[in-house]
């Protein structure tokens, strides 16, 4: 079924490009149809593979000989894959439907919908691949699709710059990932993921190899999931169309990093060093990005930073061995973040700007968007009974277990940082929510309240908010994933609820105190620092981009001024040589003869000297 879905998506992509330019109505139809078929397939796949004892299905066994270990072209679907496939195709279908209205009349619609289909296919390939290199194919195709989609509006400078940055940063990580695959594949003696997991479980991978392999793979994961130090591409990817942000930068591509760690958790778990590094990275990223989200004044940037922060949550859970918690948060985050982005798209579509200071007071004129986005924010902040509350609680539960009973010191780290970030999340969610929907309408010259978009856009919002509301049921009984839930930590729930309430209350209090102005103003001197994102871009610019450019310039100069000069010197040298010979050919036959005689005598003398073994 997975294969059928993949083929449908690819066919839709090709068809959209080939015939899409003839008629405006065809490409949306093709995109929705392709994603629809893929979604149906994924539902079947999900139904077949969910459940504690469902056996995985393996499709295909083509071998690519490489002269060393062969690459196996095979797909393997188990509970985790099935859940991810369902998440990816569901969000993709909703995004395709949503885009029909959002991008109506866009001349680039055919290529847009084709790339979205290709992207979905790549994501499905990633989550269902049973070979590291097959996974890598999907992984990188996703990267390039993301690059193309971010630069959808390529006439705008931020879109071009963001696309380049996103592609380069993820690709930098991917090289590490590739090397990590070499190490792990070499250590396990196979590139099949199932084989590697078996080898790790059987102890055939040494701790040393696991450490090197995991640290290298971590580079790719960090790049794809926008973790520190490759975190800064995700907020800059926001000039892309908003449905794309929902699909790629919330629900699927960035989640691929988390998925990979979850998939190879037995390998990562062999290495305490890798897990601790990942945990520290996750905590740093979590805290930093939540702070950045607090000060960002672009709605999509707030959401992007919150994505980064939530992904760190998942990594933190995984580093503590909380496979179920991490994966559940991945799924729930996929639902509510897609919802938030699509709702933000509806707001942006109506208002015409992404800046928070151009919004405000929208709850009256856009009631459906208001309600659904409120659901999304509530889920993000971890308000019961929405899905985010359960999955976040799950993660904090794992952390407290590790902190109080586990052997690793990182349990405390995750628990403390996680609680602080829960408060921060509530604060920035409340801030963005207030600034979008409450207070006076800012930066508006027309005086006409922005209208609610059509049902093509609202439909996906409603569907996703239903998922975000009812998803908690799934989280509480996660046996479909084949994992057991550990039960409630009542004290912890109370503490985290208190923290969330505190964060939200602070934001509301500041909002009221400042007279319905941006609560971030009360951050004081910290605000510009956070709004500049701690000058990380400038740091990268000075340490990587400029030296790189300088080296490139130096190389070019070397080519022109040194290498080319050597070549030219060869030219000139041979020219002088030829002049010398021409000068000798002056027509005086006697001079030629003189040279011949001198030469003959010289040779004779040499023969005499050498032939007799020297003058002595």
């Amino acid at each position: 079924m997975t294969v059928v879905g993949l083929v449908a998506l690819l066919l839709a992509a090709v068809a959209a490009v080939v015939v899409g330019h003839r008629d405006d109505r065809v490409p949306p139809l093709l995109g929705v149809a392709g994603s629809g078929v893929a979604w149906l397939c994924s539902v079947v796949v999900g139904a077949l593979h969910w459940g504690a004892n469902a056996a995985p299905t393996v499709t295909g066994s083509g071998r690519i000989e490489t002269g060393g270990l062969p690459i196996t072209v095979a797909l393997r679907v188990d509970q985790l894959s099935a859940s991810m496939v369902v998440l990816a195709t569901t969000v993709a279908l909703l995004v395709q439907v949503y885009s029909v209205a959002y991008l109506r009349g866009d001349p680039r619609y055919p290529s847009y919908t084709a790339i979205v289909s290709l992207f979905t296919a790549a994501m499905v390939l990633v989550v269902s691949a049973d070979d590291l290199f097959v996974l890598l194919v999907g992984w990188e195709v996703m990267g390039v699709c993301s690059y193309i989609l971010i630069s959808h509006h390529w006439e705008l400078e931020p879109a071009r710059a963001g696309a380049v940055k996103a592609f380069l940063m993820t690709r930098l990580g991917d090289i590490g990932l590739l090397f990590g695959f070499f190490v792990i594949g070499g250590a396990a003696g196979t590139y099949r993921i199932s084989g590697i997991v078996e080898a790790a479980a059987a102890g055939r991978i040494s701790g040393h190899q696991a450490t090197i392999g995991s640290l290298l793979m971590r580079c790719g994961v960090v790049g794809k999931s926008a973790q520190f130090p490759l975190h800064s591409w995700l907020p800059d990817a926001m000039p892309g169309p908003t449905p794309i942000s929902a699909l790629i930068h919330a629900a699927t591509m960035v989640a691929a990093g988390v998925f990979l760690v979850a998939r190879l958790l037995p390998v990562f778990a062999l290495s305490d060093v890798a897990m601790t590094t990942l945990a520290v990275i996750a905590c740093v990223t979590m805290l930093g990005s939540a702070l950045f989200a607090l000060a960002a004044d672009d709605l999509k940037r707030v959401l992007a930073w919150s994505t980064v922060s939530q992904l760190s949550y998942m990594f933190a859970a995984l580093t503590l061995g909380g496979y179920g918690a991490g994966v559940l948060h991945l799924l729930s985050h996929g639902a509510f973040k897609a919802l938030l982005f699509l709702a933000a798209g509806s707001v942006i579509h109506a208002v015409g700007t992404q800046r928070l200071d151009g919004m405000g007071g929208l709850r009256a004129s856009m009631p459906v968007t208001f309600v659904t986005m409120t659901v999304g924010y509530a889920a993000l902040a971890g308000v019961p009974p929405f899905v985010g509350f359960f999955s976040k609680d799950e993660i904090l539960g794992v952390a407290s277990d590790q902190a109080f009973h586990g052997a690793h010191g990182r349990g405390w780290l995750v628990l403390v940082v996680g609680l602080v970030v829960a408060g921060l999340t509530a604060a920035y969610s409340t801030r963005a929510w207030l600034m979008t929907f409450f207070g006076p309408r800012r930066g508006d010259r027309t005086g006409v309240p922005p209208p609610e978009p059509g049902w093509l856009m609202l439909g996906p919002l409603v569907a996703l908010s239903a998922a975000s509301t009812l998803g908690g049921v799934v989280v509480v009984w996660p046996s479909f994933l084949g994992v057991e839930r550990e039960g409630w930590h009542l004290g912890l729930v109370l503490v985290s609820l208190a923290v969330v309430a505190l964060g939200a209350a602070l934001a509301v209090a500041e909002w009221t105190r400042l007279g319905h102005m941006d609560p971030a103003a009360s951050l004081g001197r910290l605000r510009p620092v956070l709004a500049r994102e701690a000058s990380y871009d400038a740091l990268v610019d000075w340490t990587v981009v400029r030296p790189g450019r300088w080296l490139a310039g130096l190389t070019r100069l070397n080519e022109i001024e040194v290498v080319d000069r050597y070549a030219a010197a060869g030219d000139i040298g041979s020219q002088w040589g030829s002049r010398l010979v021409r000068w000798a050919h002056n027509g005086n036959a006697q001079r030629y003869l003189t040279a011949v005689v001198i030469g003959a005598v010289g040779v004779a003398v040499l023969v005499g000297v050498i032939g007799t073994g020297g003058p002595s």
Partner: protein
Amino acid sequence: MPLLFPLVVSSVLFGIGVYIVLARRHAVLVLMGVELMLNAVNLNLVAFDAWWHDTLDAGQVLALFVIAIAAAEIGLGLAIVLLVFRTHQHVDIDRLRELADRDETGAVEADDDRSVVS
């Protein structure tokens, strides 16, 4: 007779011949220098032939060959000299430079556009 005497004579003859060929400007004198060198070689051939007691007398035979070729050569050479005199009104070798590697303008160096450096 020791071998040394004819060898010394032939060396001296050859040296004189080389000197004439290299130093004199008159074409006829240069040809005479060539004759001197040839005959020095002939003397060598005959002397070695006698010294080796060669049963085939190869040295003497070769000397005869050289004499015949020298005759032909001098005939050709004098004919060329005559033609040169008719066209140039002189037979001064130093002034016969038509074979020099130069282009029409007379400068010895020039670029044709397919040379290595353009």
